[in-house]
């Protein structure tokens, strides 16, 4: 049962990071925005949910209202950040979003009247916890996370393979040329930026349920770098890569817990996790620069079955290429 509990927790945590990675892939992978504010939206979503639905320090609203509210509030924050920052070049967007994330964490530490500061808020309710005891709940929760992750994945896939996805990749490839064909680049970037952060905000609710507490030290920049590492590891620009990268990274990080070392080396072991993650990233970038799952899109002809229906037919046995 302990193993089952551990595995359920692992799957749940992997699923949450996969949701983050998919959200970041929409923003950073497809659209090409260099966003280091992931943990900021994550924290805003988590705290917004807690303050809306917690009976102790919050408004005590139903959980579903808390989830929707967290998405809206995160969206509003990202609208403010995006409106002021998205006209900047990528390097400056990196700095601005990173600063935003740090500001959120510092506010959470210092505004004790709102967040209870470093002490945090404990004993937060989880959905359906009263109906399912002990280990069974964790298995259910892992299933819930996977289901929502599945919704994220399907949504992101549909978006990526739609004309909008093509348009987003065009912006990523060359903003100036996209402007030169009459596309409203800034408006599109802002919409996707807000969408992506709303997705991250909802993932924040799941993190609060997973941990059952919320405290500022849960939202350090390490989360942002973990999500980016997962995305690069898995394959930036594709949703399957985002999911694979997240689970591989969490699995490897958690697997280091089972490395048998004497007590005096336990601190070193904690550092080993970061070392292993870093080494994986280096090896992937060196030998598989496109990630474990390379970005690949079906050709327009295959997506819409034009070969059969269009007036122009393709010769059979044509050479395969990366776009087919």
């Amino acid at each position, binding site marked *: 049962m302990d193993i089952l509990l551990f595995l359920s927790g692992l799957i749940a945590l992997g699923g949450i990071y996969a949701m983050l990675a998919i959200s970041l892939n929409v923003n950073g992978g497809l659209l090409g925005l260099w966003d280091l504010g992931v943990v900021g939206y994550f924290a805003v979503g988590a705290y917004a949910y807690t303050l809306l639905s917690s009976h102790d320090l919050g408004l005590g609203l139903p959980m579903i209202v808390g989830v929707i509210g967290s998405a809206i509030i995160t969206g509003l924050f990202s609208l403010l950040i995006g409106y002021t920052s998205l006209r900047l070049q990528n390097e400056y967007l990196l700095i601005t979003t990173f600063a935003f994330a740090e500001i959120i964490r510092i506010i959470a530490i210092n505004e004790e009247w709102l967040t209870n500061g470093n002490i945090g808020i404990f004993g937060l309710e989880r959905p359906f916890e009263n109906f399912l005891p002990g280990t069974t709940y964790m298995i259910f929760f892992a299933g819930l996370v996977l289901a929502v992750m599945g919704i994220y994945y399907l949504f992101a896939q549909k978006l990526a393979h739609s004309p909008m996805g093509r348009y987003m990749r*065009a912006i990523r490839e*060359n903003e100036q040329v996209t402007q030169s064909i009459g596309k409203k680049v800034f408006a599109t970037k802002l919409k996707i930026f807000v969408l992506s952060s709303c997705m991250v905000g909802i993932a924040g609710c799941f993190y609060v349920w997973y941990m059952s507490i919320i405290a500022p030290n849960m939202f350090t920049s390490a989360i942002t770098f973990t999500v980016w590492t997962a995305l690069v590891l898995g394959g930036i620009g594709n949703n399957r890569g985002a999911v694979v990268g997240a689970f591989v990274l969490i699995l490897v990080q958690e697997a280091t817990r089972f490395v048998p070392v004497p007590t005096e080396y336990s601190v070193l072991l904690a550092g080993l996790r970061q070392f292993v993650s870093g080494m994986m990233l280096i090896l992937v970038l060196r030998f598989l620069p496109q990630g474990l799952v390379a970005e690949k899109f079906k050709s327009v002809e295959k997506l819409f079955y034009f070969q059969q229906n269009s007036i122009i037919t393709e010769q059979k046995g044509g050479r395969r290429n990366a776009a087919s």
Partner: protein
Amino acid sequence: MLQVKNLSKNFGGIQAVKNVNLEVNQGEIVGLIGPNGAGKTTLFNMISLFLTSNSGEISFLNEKIDHYTAEDVVSKGLLRTFQTPVGFPKLSLLENLMVVPPHDGDGIFQAFYKGKVIAKQEKENYEKVCTLLKQFNLYEKRNELAENLSAAELKLLELCRQLMANPKILLLDEPASGVNPLMLDKMVDHILRLRKEGMTFLVIDHNLGFIYRICDRIYCLANGELIASGSPEEISNNEQVKSVYLGVS
């Protein structure tokens, strides 16, 4: 069709363009020549509104366009190409062109509830794109990534991409640069064919043979100022042009 009056641009202490006057009438192919650093691309950037001018005005189809954005002016029919055609390297040729037309699918959630409308538009755009690719002999490579094309093919692809937006006037920035003579002949044929179909061009290039072949009139820019304008024959005999541009006194 296009009028530029007393257009100027300076970058700090450097006067890149100074009081340039230029006119392009409907159906014309007008050339813009000049030595490196003369201000030709800066002028293009101002006309296509990628750069704001310091003074002067630009009119297109009898309407002042100075206050428009670069995206807005495209919908009026003014498009441009770039000196180095990179395009969208990781998109296939089909995708490079199909991204251009306005689309009901250009929205986050449209793909989820406008599937049939989008599929119909995709088919229409696909057929238009295939026809265009066939005209430019790029059809066989339609599923290749743009980054796999040669420099000359990239130029043709860029031309195709801008044509997908139904331009009334096309600003071509060095279309003959890096293009071999055989491809250049094809480029000339395409431009002249498009002119017959009603399109207007303003062309920058250093290849004077190419410019003289296609242009009705030519402007010559040097040190940000217009030093000569006229027919290809007049320009080729202009002493000031020879001195400044060709280094012949």
